[in-house]
């Protein structure tokens, strides 16, 4: 599947805004991402959010990702 990388996350993938990845869940997706781009680990440690078809998930690694989903990796957001 295609994963789009927002903001500074794309730097960890050598500047690519969009990368090819596999995974049936958010957890698997992140794992495969780190395998390909070890620098991504730092961002994962700081926390990321994954938008699957517009729905933003922060800490749900078991969340399934449907086939052909629109997947976006975002930096984690803080609030007030």
């Amino acid at each position, binding site marked *: 599947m295609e994963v*789009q990388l927002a903001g500074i996350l794309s730097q960890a993938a050598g500047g690519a805004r969009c990368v090819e990845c596999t995974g049936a869940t958010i957890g698997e997706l992140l794992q495969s991402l780190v395998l390909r781009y070890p620098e991504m680990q730092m961002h994962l440690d700081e926390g990321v959010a994954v938008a699957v078809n517009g729905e933003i998930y*922060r800490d749900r690694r078991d969340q399934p990702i449907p086939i052909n989903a*629109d997947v976006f990796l975002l*930096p984690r957001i803080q*609030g*007030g």
Partner: protein
Amino acid sequence: MPYETDYTNQGFTKVGTRVNRPDGVDKVTGRAKYGADANAAGQLVGRVLRSPHAHALITKIDTSKAEKLPGVKAVLTGKDFPDLTGGNRGLMDILENCMARGRALYDGHAVAAVAAIDADTANKALKLIKVTYKQLPHVTDVDEAIKPGAPIIHDWVRTAGVTPAPTTASNVAQRSEFGHGDVDAGFAQADVIIEKSFKTEQTHQGYIEPHACLATLGPDGSGELWVTTQGHFTFRNVCASLLGLEVAKLKVTSSEIGGGFGGKTHVWTEPVALQLSRKANRPVKLVMSRDEVFRATGPTSSTSVDVKIGAKRNGKITAATAELRYQSGAFPGMWAMFGAMTSFACYDLKNVKSVGFDVLVNRPKVAAYRAPSAPMAAFAVESVVDMLAAELGMDAVDFRIKNAAKKGTKASYGPVYGPIGIGPTLDAVKNHPHMKRKLGKNQGRGVACGFWFNFGGQTCTDLNIGVDGSVNLTVGTVDVGGSRASLALIAAEELGIDYEQVRVTIGDTNSLGHNDTTEGSRGTFSSGMATIFAARNAVDVLKQRAAATWDIPVEQVIWEAGEARAKGRQNNNLPPLSLKEIAAKSPRTGGPIAGHNEVVADGAGVSFASHMCDVEVDPETGATKILRYTVVQDAGKAIHPDYVEGQFQGGAAQGIGWALNEEYIYGDDGRLQNAGFLDYRIPVCSDLPFIDTQILEIPNPNHPYGVRGVGETSIVPPLAAIGNAVSNAVGVRMTHVPMSPPRILNAIETAKE
């Protein structure tokens, strides 16, 4: 205009009513205990010594005289905080912000601390500490800090987010870019393009209760912390990591909280208080003064933003770009990134690009402030949107409606929206009686939109039913503004019992699993979700008990209107069993009845608001009066409308203060010149009119009741709404917030020339 509402309204009996809050009596009688209201036997008074310099090497700290003063029980400097962060830069920044390590990075940075038997002795001790400083060049302005030759705050900072990675130090900690499409092509299609630069000044959350805690830490490494905080679980984890404690051995209790707005999501003096207590082996109470609160906690970024938007004659935006420079104080932050993410979130744009630059300066470490970073970006974008509408000869609201994001729009920060409320809020504005009020001389009207993400996060909730049928609900999110009432309503709704039967308590860190900090408008959203699930859990148990009592299979039992009912004709002779009846028998039917839930409450549902305001500007003095102010916001579902309105009104009032008065003023010496409520003026009662509210309910499909977070979005539109109103009143575009009288007069003068 028809909108997607594919999530139908449910019927509620409790939710949506305006009940009295359970902690009301405590709070009107003075009984409620806040951060500074707890005491322990033998407690000491903690005080912190702070740097008077914006940037200085600390060459020596001599504490010997202070230590010898009778009554002084502990003195600390940076040396007393060994680095236990294991290379975690974020933790190190927190530690260094709590206590300087060889260098003072801003006016107000902590350099030493004492614990003594009373305030008088502690203050004397501070005076006896001799700190030798070597002053370094400093920079406090965000644009100055980027210029070549500006003093470098940290020599280890390399700008993240640029390829190839830079090799020299910079005050730009991070560049982050968002967007899609081709903005150059988009601008080429535009008939009209407006480009403008804006500035906003630094403001403070301004909670009335200063930071306060009571810390006890024994030599065995176990301790307790009573503290005013938005996140006692997070405070526990951070304090434990910084001080080398086991998480389970530090019990943190959140006091009643006297306002936070994001400023109480971060630790400031709490690790210092714990360390003082460990050294003195006595409880230490540490309460900040207002001056310290201003100089060393909170604030939000000051910013400088360039926006460019192009549109066709028909009113369709073809491209939009923004460059946002936000200072994060003396430590790297991600605030410009949030600004870049939120800046164009209200609109449906084919070609959009926003780039944020997080900049280091010699000011206090920036903290979250209600929808952090969004208001400044909205000020710039919504001002240009207004200018563009005027240039096109279109009504400013119609222009926004034409370009508003909707379900299926690809958000400027990436994902595609589900059902959202920006369109409906704009429609409500268009049809609001406020818009028909006649404007007089020197008066102007402004409208603006705002967006905030909201989020859920880790949540853990316990529900216990007493033998008399009263219900104890224990939650781990802090009640920052009435959430106990909302959560009791939710539990009552699920169980089918009276609101008064439910008692909500905020559990300490030893009585519940981890709960994320109460931020991101998550309190009622996520604890509400966990409460629903915990209550449904308890209902399962109630049904089992009823089934056992009747000796029928549990499948034949349903829960309705607060009682178990036996289904099916064969059970016609069984009268329903109420929650009270089942609870009374519980000791003999299997013991206590409880429900429990832990959840990562995702899908908080983004939230939108549109504000309108009328102002009158005195052309002689430049003073602005707010004549009328109206907030329209999507709440998903308002659990307790009073407190939803309260959030709308409070956010608007903070935004009004930010727009017109509030700002950090730094002297050339890099010192904060207005660290008090007299000179940092927040709105008072006579500054404001009644603030009208209209709650829209576009249900959030990810919440069983359709709830969206409501706490933050209301601070996003005011800067721009007032900016547009003032600009319309004086006939000059305002580009610098706060629009204080001198700035307005200046703008009028400059326009005349």
